């Protein structure tokens, strides 16, 4: 297992080698489809073995379909998937033709004989000739004599796989002891790589010179292992031979690569020939590159719904055509057929769901039954935002909420003040026995700013405000009294007034109730194995709850708000005397829920339609 310089292969290179510029081909991006890939002699001579090895690791390209398209004019026939089982070398391409895997990798010398390149260059599609008994086209291709072109190529393939028989290896056979030591060394490396990856740690710093005190996580960990285990300590790092340390960053990367390939192939294995659906989303990463994540959802053999993260790819732009190309590439790389897609889930951006040129339309062109489902969680968000924006009172409420939170949490000093007040109130309450103590129950929290894209943050921010209403009031009062500038005092006084108004308190409570209900739905939708029937059921229950709140939640709500106001010394308007103001609040409450109801209704209608 000692690192060796790449040695020339023991096989005859094909005679036909055209002059090619020496470009390195990226092994990770080989084209798998047999009709589109370049011929092996088109690669540079030095890279041919590497390419062959990469193809061998990928295996022959055998896409499984329930039915293959018809070919032939007079007597249309189809390809049959069970041929794959009887002829392991067989490959099927997107152009509906069959190829031979070993003959492609190890093409024989070109000769004048016609038909020799059927299975390597042109592709075979005369399916009629397969069921011809003795004269079956596949058998003819394999040939009877043991030295036929096909059998020779198969032998070449076996030899390339079997590295230990290579002549160089035989000459320099290592002792078993050495091999064992090497295995132990690489085992340590593999374990460290795995551990670091699971903990999301970096492998190394940007500078790896040995004089540095901190050598990066990987090497430091290796040293730690060395200090604990003598057996390993005697082998790794300084004690390892120079050519088999297995600690360089290339090796680390290669190990990680092997892990990733194994994970992907076991996911592929899990999918089997089940129908699946693709969920795609893009986001920008830390270095502002657009990354697209591809998740496959399918039902495995024992009936569990699985959502597996298959790959993440960098995309140049986010047009539907580019995304489609990348997704198809990934799918075909994993031997997954576009025809087996039975659903697509996107977040509803226009490049995704566009009716004519959106990603979903492009996929439906390829596969008629790839039904598009708009992400329900995103839909709920949109409905809630619209509900909040379209009622002026609620809109003002949220504006005010953000304003107050900004003022209170603007500086560290104010935050500290807030925490101190809170701590003292909590202590007081614990003393008089009003609240219980427990782990993590009475934590001192700050105020959270609501963000538009994540609706549960609104809910949290409202809950927090209710919890620390008193402390917030105190802080604002303090600022209003002795803020350093006039504008500060003015701002604080204004927001204090807002906080003390009955309107604010009322909407605060209404929104808390409404959003408490929808938050449940929101959380449930994000669960890992959610199915569409369940989701629709949840939407219905949410609707019923809101309806109930609208019909007979008013009294309890009013009671709650009144007691809250009394507690916080907010003036409660007299319900009978100021009829107009109460009437307004009453109407407002109706509006919110009606509007909301309406929205949820619409979203369910949309879901129904999409089903």
């Amino acid at each position, binding site marked *: 297992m000692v*690192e*060796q310089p790449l040695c020339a292969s023991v096989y005859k290179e094909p005679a036909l080698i055209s002059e090619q510029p020496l470009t390195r081909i990226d092994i990770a991006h080989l084209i798998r489809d047999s009709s589109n890939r370049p011929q092996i002699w088109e690669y540079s001579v030095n890279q041919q073995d590497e390419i062959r*090895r990469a193809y061998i*690791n990928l295996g022959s390209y055998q896409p499984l379909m329930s039915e293959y398209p018809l070919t032939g004019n007079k007597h249309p026939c189809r390809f049959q998937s069970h041929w794959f089982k009887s002829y392991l070398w067989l490959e099927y391409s997107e152009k509906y033709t069959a190829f031979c895997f070993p003959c492609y990798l190890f093409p024989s010398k070109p000769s004048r004989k016609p038909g020799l390149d059927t299975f390597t260059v042109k592709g075979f599609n005369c399916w009629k000739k397969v069921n011809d008994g003795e004269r079956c086209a596949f058998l003819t291709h394999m040939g009877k004599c043991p030295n036929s072109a096909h059998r020779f190529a198969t032998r070449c393939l076996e030899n390339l796989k079997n*590295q230990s028989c290579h002549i160089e290896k035989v000459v320099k056979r290592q002792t078993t002891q050495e091999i064992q030591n090497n295995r132990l060394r690489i*085992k340590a490396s*593999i374990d460290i790589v*795995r551990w670091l*990856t*699971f903990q*999301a740690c*970096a492998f190394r710093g940007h500078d790896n010179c040995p004089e540095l005190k901190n050598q990066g996580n990987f090497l430091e960990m290796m040293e730690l292992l060395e200090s604990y285990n003598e057996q390993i300590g005697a082998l790794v790092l300084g004690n390892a031979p120079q050519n088999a340390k297995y600690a360089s960053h290339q090796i680390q*990367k290669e190990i*990680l*690569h*092997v*892990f*990733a*390939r*194994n*994970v992907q192939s*076991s*996911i592929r294995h899990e999918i089997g020939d089940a129908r699946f*659906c693709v*969920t*795609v989303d893009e986001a920008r*990463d*830390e*270095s502002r*590159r657009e990354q697209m994540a591809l*998740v496959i*959802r399918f*039902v495995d053999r*024992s*009936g569990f*719904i699985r*959502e*597996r*993260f298959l790959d*993440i*790819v*960098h995309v140049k732009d986010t047009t539907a055509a580019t995304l489609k190309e990348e997704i198809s590439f990934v799918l075909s790389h994993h031997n997954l057929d576009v025809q087996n897609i*039975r659903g697509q*889930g*996107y977040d509803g951006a226009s490049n995704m769901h566009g009716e004519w040129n959106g990603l979903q339309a492009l996929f439906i062109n390829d596969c008629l*039954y790839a*039904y598009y*489902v708009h*992400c*329900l*969680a*995103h839909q709920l968000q949109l409905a809630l935002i619209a509900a909040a924006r379209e009622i002026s009172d609620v809109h003002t409420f949220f504006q005010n909420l953000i304003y107050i939170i900004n003022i209170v949490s603007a500086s560290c000093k104010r935050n500290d003040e807030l925490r101190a007040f809170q701590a003292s109130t909590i202590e007081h309450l614990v003393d008089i026995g009003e609240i219980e103590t427990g782990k993590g129950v009475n934590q001192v929290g700050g105020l959270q700013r609501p963000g538009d894209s994540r609706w549960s943050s609104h809910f949290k921010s409202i809950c927090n405000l209710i919890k620390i209403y008193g402390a917030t009031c105190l802080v604002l009062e303090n600022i209003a009294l002795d803020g350093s500038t006039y504008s500060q005092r003015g701002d604080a006084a204004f927001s204090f007034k807002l906080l003390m108004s009955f309107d604010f308190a009322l909407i605060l409570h209404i929104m808390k109730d409404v959003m408490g209900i929808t938050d449940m739905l929101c959380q449930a*939708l994000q669960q890992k194995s*959610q*199915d*569409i*029937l369940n*989701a*629709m059921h949840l939407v219905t229950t949410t609707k019923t709850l809101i309806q109930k709140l609208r019909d007979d939640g008013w009294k309890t709500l009013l009671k709650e708000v009144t007691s809250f106001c009394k507690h916080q010394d907010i003036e409660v308007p007299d319900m009978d005397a100021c009829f107009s103001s109460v009437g307004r609040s009453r109407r407002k409450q109706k509006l919110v829920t009606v509007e909301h109801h309406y929205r949820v209704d619409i979203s369910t209608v949309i879901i129904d339609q999409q*089903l």
Partner: protein
Amino acid sequence: MSTALDPRNSYKLFNVEDICLLVDKFYPQDFSDQEKIHLRLQLQHYELDVPNHPKLKSMSSIADLCQGLVETGKSTIYPLVDRLIRLILTLPVSTATTERAFSGMKIVKTRLRNRMEDDFLANYLIVYIEKEIAERFTIDMIIDDFYSMKER
């Protein structure tokens, strides 16, 4: 229409016609004409059998039902019904898993690690997110693959 398969309230909503319509309309490629006739027959048996099965009686969701069918071996008796249920379960609900992947990406590719290559990021994320699969591999499997990757 797919609500017709819902196991809630002891299969109250079960309706053979609706299910056959569903197949006709949405999944014509997955069922041949012959199979559609078979499906109708299977559904009739299924209607009488499954709601009375002690274990399958009280299923609360279609996902549980699918697992239950496999556990009790009913999926081999009603292969077409099983296929249909699987197809319905495959429909996506939310993109939460992809969003989760991105929050994983944020943890991995931080401000200090912003020079990471795309390939490396992809490999790292696959292993990081699908931990449970990566845990299963033995060291020897990895060593063998590592060995076959390059001439050493």
